[in-house]
């Protein structure tokens, strides 16, 4: 798998202005996680992104590997000049993480993708022409 190119069957990374929006799916193995990290860091540089939103509302289980990956992604992105927000963590996942003692130190979180985008400076139009920029992930 040559890295910078899109992974097979992976989650798309969308660009909204200077924000990259992506997500993680439940079936996340080590290999696809590495590929995701590679692609995301490449995209931050190539798209000159200042913010990254990672939606994890589809993740039903976060183990120490994924937790570490999220923390590393945050650090990497910060080094590349982008701010990462992890959005949409499920209650059960949050409880598990706390019980495992994984606090995701340094990772910013948001309740859902919308809140995350707002935190990244995305503004809802006062009068949305046509479609409102609401995400449909909730």
């Amino acid at each position, binding site marked *: 798998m040559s890295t910078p190119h899109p992974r097979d069957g992976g989650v798309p990374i969308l660009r909204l202005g200077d924000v990259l929006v992506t997500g993680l799916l439940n079936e996340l193995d080590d290999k696809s996680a590495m590929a995701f990290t590679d692609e995301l860091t490449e995209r931050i540089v190539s798209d000159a992104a200042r913010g990254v939103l990672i939606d994890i509302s589809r993740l039903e289980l976060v183990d120490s590997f994924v937790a570490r990956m999220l923390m590393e992604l945050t650090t990497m992105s910060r080094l590349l000049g982008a701010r990462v927000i992890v959005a949409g963590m499920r209650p059960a996942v949050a409880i598990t993480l*706390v019980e495992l003692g994984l606090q995701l130190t340094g990772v910013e979180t948001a309740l859902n993708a919308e809140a995350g985008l707002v935190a*990244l400076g995305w503004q809802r139009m006062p009068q949305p022409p046509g479609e409102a920029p609401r995400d449909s992930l909730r």
Partner: protein
Amino acid sequence: MSTSETTVRDRLLDALREREQEIADRWVRLQLEQSTLGVDLGEYELREEADLLIAALGAGLASDVPVRQLVASQHELRRTVIELSLRRARAGATPTATSLAVLSLKEALLEAVQHTTADSRELFDAAVLVNRLLDAAGALSFETYVEGREEIIQRQSNQLMELSTPVVRLWHHVLAVPLIGTLDTARTQVVMENLLQAIQDNEARVAIIDITGVPAVDTAVAQHLMHTVNAVRLMGADCVISGIRPPIAQTIAQLGIDLSTILTHSTLADALTAAVRLTDQPSVPTPHAPAGP
């Protein structure tokens, strides 16, 4: 041994069948005389119980289950004893009264056996058998009572758990959990689950945990609070703790518990003000502890 036991058993069974009415009457009278029933059970009900139990005893003795295991493994007999003690427990009888009542059946039975034989050896064997049988029944009735009680206690503590952790919506995007009573691991779990779910459902930005009703904060309780706060933050909301009374502030400081990463207030009103201010901000980046890259 086994042959003699069989004979004794047959003798007992005969006595039981022949003098069924007599034994039942005698037992009812004994119980009424004892007057330790603890409840008003009428003679009619007692008589009904007696008939049922004696019939079950007869059926049990007629089966080939050994006497030692008769009460434990003979289904009908066991059920009859359990029903009897449950009925009395519900009527408010003490467990002692119920088991004594069951044990007083011994006397009635032995009197009946006495009429069938005069041989002291045989009488002794019969007494041993009756003792074994009814001691087990008495113990079972006691056990049933305790089990019933345990069940009630368990149910009540579950109810208490659910009742004591309501999540209320105070403002747009602001939730509050008034905690009452001591925080232990189980309750923390329930509080956490309820709170996180409510945060998701209400899209809350701030959760206020009010600990006015928590009598004392020790290291364990503080640990549980920290866990909850961290879980709330992972969800992308903010957490404020309110209702810290002066004595509690003193204990926290004296124990050296570090709550410095948590926003705390002394009253719920202050916390609500702070929460509303937090939600008024256009964007709410969660104030995580800064991490070195």
